[in-house]
């Protein structure tokens, strides 16, 4: 368990440093099981920081989301560091961003948060409706939820996100300092969901995706929340010339999702944020996890686990399979 006071004091110390510009973590949300990311720029706001199983969002997304204004003539750009709190899964985004040289390592201060799982808000809503809990914590194999002066114990799988049940990296893979002791790994990932999906016939698969993609309203929340979708100009936002039409129909929607899946192959670090944020429940990660498994099987490559690695598409090994060349 994290000592909140200790965490906030540490954050205060970090944000007070002359060479630190902002600190990204989590704060309490305004209702239900919600948490919200927070960007702290002043030590007085550090008291808002929390860490508990409601902290679902990936703070690493906000490193690349920041839009910088043009620097006025005669002024120097602000090159101070960004501090960011990351769970194990979140940290893989930073590793992969570093592998891709999105920014130099010394630009970020990584505060590691060993984690034992986060809440799936859809599961929580199904169990508890609109109620706002007083406290949510993990106790051994149980999730303990206190609400309305009652305490409910739940099995972890009943309320935690599916990704947590197969988590192999509960401890941050890159960090300058861990905020708590490391936790023991419990999960394994056999890609059972991908196996299950692959049993479908090609016709059924197409029918499935046709239904799913037809729902898409192209809000681009999946792209925007993705820590690996940090292109300066996304291909679907290109207007001169326009590569993807704005209109929503099965053809354009599928083009968008398939493009995104391809652009993430060998890069997706499986934080599952895209699927979590989708307002129309498209199982986006089914595509990404298929790519992840293929990459792993064909090239023995896993993105976001080794800062020293080369990006998959930038390295070549004579042993790479060539089955796809007829």
């Amino acid at each position, binding site marked *: 368990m994290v000592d909140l006071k200790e965490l906030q004091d540490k954050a205060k110390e970090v944000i007070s440093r002359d060479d630190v510009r902002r600190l990204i973590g989590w704060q309490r*949300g*305004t*209702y*239900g099981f*919600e*948490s*919200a*990311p*927070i*960007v702290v720029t002043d030590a007085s706001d550090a008291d808002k920081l929390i860490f508990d199983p409601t902290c679902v*969002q990936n703070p690493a*997304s*906000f490193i690349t*989301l920041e*839009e910088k*204004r*043009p620097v006025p003539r005669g002024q120097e750009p602000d090159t101070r560091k960004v501090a960011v709190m990351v769970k194990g899964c979140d940290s893989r985004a930073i590793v992969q961003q570093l592998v891709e040289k999105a920014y130099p390592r010394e630009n970020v201060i990584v505060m590691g948060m060993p984690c034992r799982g986060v809440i799936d808000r*859809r599961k929580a809503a199904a169990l508890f409706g*609109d109620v706002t809990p007083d406290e949510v914590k993990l106790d051994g194999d149980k999730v303990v939820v206190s609400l309305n002066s009652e305490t409910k114990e739940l099995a972890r799988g009943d309320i935690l996100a599916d990704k947590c049940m197969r988590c192999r990296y509960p401890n941050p893979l890159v960090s300058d300092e861990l905020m708590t002791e490391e936790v023991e790994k419990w999960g394994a990932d056999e890609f059972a969901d991908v196996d299950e999906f692959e049993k479908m016939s090609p016709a059924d698969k197409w029918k499935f995706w046709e*239904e799913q993609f037809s*729902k898409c*309203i*192209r*809000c*681009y*929340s999946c*792209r*925007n*929340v993705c820590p690996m979708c940090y292109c300066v100009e996304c291909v679907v*936002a290109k*207007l001169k010339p*326009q590569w993807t*039409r*704005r*209109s*929503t*129909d099965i053809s354009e929607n599928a083009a968008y999702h398939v493009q995104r899946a391809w652009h993430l192959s060998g890069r997706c670090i499986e934080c599952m*944020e895209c699927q*979590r*944020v989708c*307002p*129309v*429940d498209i199982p986006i990660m089914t595509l990404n996890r298929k790519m992840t498994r293929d990459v792993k099987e064909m090239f023995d490559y896993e993105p976001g686990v080794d800062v020293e690695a080369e990006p998959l598409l930038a390295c070549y090994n004579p042993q790479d399979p060539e089955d796809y060349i007829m």
Partner: protein
Amino acid sequence: MGDYKFAKDKLAEVLSSLGDYQVFAPTPAGDVVRFLEVKDPAAVTLESANSTVPPKELMFPETETLFKYRLGDTGLDPSVPDASARRLVFGIRPCDAMAYTIVDNLFSWDFTDPYYLNRRENTTLVGFACGDPCANCFCPSMGGAPASEKGLDALMFDLGDTFYVKTLTDKGDAFAKAAGLDAAGDAESKAAEKQAEEALGKVKRSIDTAGIPEKLPSLYDHPFWEQFSDRCLSCGICTFLCPTCHCFDIQDEAEAFNARRARMWDTCMFAEYTVHTSGHNPRPTRKERTRNRISHKYSYFPEKFDVIACVGCGRCINNCPVNIDLLDILEKSKQAEGKEAKTA
């Protein structure tokens, strides 16, 4: 205008009897509920608190063809799609019906939009009063109520085994006649009144909007926006799922010689929304975009049309992945100290 009722187990029968109308009703696909054309009455649900995607898409679709044309032809022979079908929206929540009355201002303002207005004209709205408002509903603060009649042709109440239907306009009466509903009496209308009052008491959240439209322009450069925009993803959830957001883009799409001019939802939360041809963007960061979303709803729109462009449905709060809470922004805007007003 009359009082009608029908037994709950007759729902499918009632829906099937509306053959003269193209009927739309809330239909689930997994956890997502949308207003779809009723093909199978058994697929319709009235159980969900509200649809995920608001029924604004029935008047103002995500993408719609304005007209078709052929490339290379001399002269333009645009064929405008026929939108004269008689439609009925069944089970629309009072907030979403009120939203139409707000958006009407825009589409009948400097240019009367035939696409939107024809559909409005040809559509009967059969509302469904909320017995159990959600966590983030605040319709009473916006002049609505769980059983508001604004904009509706008829309003249904769930009274356990029966639905009580109160018709409010001629269109509503025509629906009751077409559906062959039974007459209801005092008992039902009293029960509905009681339910409406109870539901009003169950609404948990509220905002006193007095002074907000006048105050927001004074907060134009205020840093308080940043505590929200810093975590904003700049995605389209809050605006696309908003029943009053009405911005659109118009694009020409051509395939070989066949082309169309289409319009599709657009949102001020996207960076490219304001990009000039030169490449300059007057709203370069999420701060300006967040400010615009709130200011448009709560200041610019009421300044022009004397009504706030929000109905308190709570969708933007419910669906925001980073918990940007409209009511939280509004409360903080009241506390923030403004500077002399600057125009937008």
